[in-house]
């Protein structure tokens, strides 16, 4: 993508002398490059690399939050251990598996809904109409609102006794009695999904909109001349063309959704109905002070996300532009 000057410098001007100067400049640049990268790499090592390694290590120990320094290795006991005729450990904990299932269900459902609605909103915003800029700015509002605040706002609207949503639904005759949105086992997951979808549609919509605005107009002119139905044009022309952008949006949202924490923590706290892997891990780590066991859960979450990332990088390497 970039063509650094230093590599081309030798071809310019006199032979030997400029060749020497070229390598010198080049070497100086490479040295400077590493020097410039060093602070960032140190920072990342301090807040990401080292802590991650420690988390892996803790997951094989019985460390507790009070004193993480005093930990003894206990092998795989946090994950799985056979003791006195029964299996114990994270992998046998039904609550853990519930939280895995919840995370997967939450991620797949909310990302699917976001993509569908995001594309619809993007198509609307792609049309020419008066006040388009204003609408586009307004659509960004949910994205700008802190997750905690949006969770609180929705918690109030979903309030079982005084919430406006129950009020509306009862006024319209859809329900007879108020629903306990955030407490009911069958509803709370949907309440969480509803809030997450509301907050993240703008992100998907904007990415898709950017892709839509780069589409060539001649395909559409041709389709219009041939009198092809707009719906067909969308599925045959638009959708295939925006698929790369859509895939990027999906992977970003999916990785985000798999580590979801704050919206659920605020809306339903530690309820097992909506417990995700992040909530489970943090509860073990901080509330139960069991750093070893909690780290085992964190490690599992990390491995799942890493697997998905690696798969994506492998499949979509060229799109990322890393190798160009």
């Amino acid at each position, binding site marked *: 993508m*970039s063509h650094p*000057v*230093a590599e081309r410098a030798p071809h310019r001007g006199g032979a030997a002398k400029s060749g020497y100067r070229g390598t010198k*400049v080049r070497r100086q*640049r490479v040295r*400077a*490059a590493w020097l*410039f*990268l060093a*602070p*960032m790499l140190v920072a*990342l090592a301090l*807040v*990401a690399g*080292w*802590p991650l390694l*420690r*988390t892996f290590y803790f997951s094989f120990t019985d460390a507790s939050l009070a004193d*993480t*320094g005093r930990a003894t290795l206990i092998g795989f006991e946090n994950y799985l251990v056979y003791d006195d005729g029964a299996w114990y450990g994270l992998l046998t904990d039904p609550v853990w598996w519930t939280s895995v299932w919840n995370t997967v269900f939450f991620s797949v459902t909310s990302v699917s809904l976001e993509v569908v609605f995001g594309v619809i*909103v993007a198509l*609307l915003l792609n*049309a020419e*109409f008066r006040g388009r800029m204003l*609408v*586009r*700015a307004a*659509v*960004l*509002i949910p994205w700008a*609102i*802190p*997750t*905690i*605040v949006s969770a*609180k*706002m*929705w918690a*109030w609207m979903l309030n079982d*006794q*005084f919430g406006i949503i129950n*009020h509306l639904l009862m006024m319209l005759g859809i329900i007879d009695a108020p629903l306990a949105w955030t407490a009911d086992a069958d509803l709370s997951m949907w309440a969480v999904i509803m809030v997450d979808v509301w907050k993240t549609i703008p*992100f998907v919509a*904007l990415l898709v909109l*950017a*892709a839509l605005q780069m589409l060539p107009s001649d395909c559409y002119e041709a389709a219009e001349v041939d009198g092809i139905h707009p719906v067909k044009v969308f599925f045959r022309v638009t959708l295939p063309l925006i698929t790369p952008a859509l895939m990027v949006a999906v992977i970003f949202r999916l990785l985000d959704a*798999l580590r979801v*924490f*704050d919206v659920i*923590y605020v809306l339903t706290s530690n309820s097992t109905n909506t417990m995700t892997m992040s909530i489970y*891990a*943090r509860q073990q780590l901080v509330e139960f002070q069991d750093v070893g066991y909690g780290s085992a859960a*964190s490690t599992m979450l*990390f491995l799942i*996300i*890493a697997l998905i*990332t690696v798969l994506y*990088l492998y499949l979509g390497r060229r799109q*990322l*532009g890393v190798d160009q």
Partner: protein
Amino acid sequence: MNRTVLRLLKRLGFYALIAVVLFYAIFPFYYAVVTSLKPSSELFRVDFWPSSFDLVNYARILGEKSFVRAILNSILVSFSVVFIALLLGLTASYALGRVRFRGRTSVLLIILGVSMFPQVAVLSGLFEVIRVLDLYNNPAGLVLSYTIFTLPFTVWVLTTFMRQLPQELEEAAIMDGATPWITITRVFLPLMWPAMATTGLLAFIAAWNEFLFALTFTLTDDQRTVPVAIALISGGSQHELPWGPIMAASVTVTVPLVVLVMIFQRRIVSGLTAGAVKG
């Protein structure tokens, strides 16, 4: 005749859809504003329109020392995070965007990998680091921990911008004998301002909204940031939350963000698409 009617209907349907989208996007925030302006006696009557203009909830929230302190902490943390991320991001993006060297692809992949970390995966290790550095229950600890998500993003977006700058500029600088540092500060920095404003804004919003680290790495009311302060506002019991003050606090911390987004929406859109489409 028939065709004009059909077109009119289509047009009407289109605007109806736009109206639905607008309503959906704005209503929750609008309703929070309406609620925040109600005295507690009227709180439990559902109103679609502002029925009263009572600032008692705002007075209560802003009269609380810990909440004001939380706002100050959030401002301090967010600005520091933006400053650090931009400083480290600018130099790193020069190296990654303009210089070809061995290991560049690996560095880019590391950055991409870190940006995909689940925060909870580093929670226990980072907790230890923060305690060793004696930054527990200290906003400085949050500044440090937030670099895990602001730095990769900043570097990534600035690198894509850096690559698009014309090469002749740099050639001229090198011909004049400028060192890389001079090239960055004198040649690129003036051109990078728009990109820096965008990424800085996005980093600011991310830091302002962060919850998990802020909840875990602080303990006392006077060290908290805004999201944690709001999440922990509580009443007598779980079933009688003080919704008026909660909504007032929510509106207070959100209005600046909404205004920023409205003003800079073009930049934000370009930053988000540069960060995501190209990375």
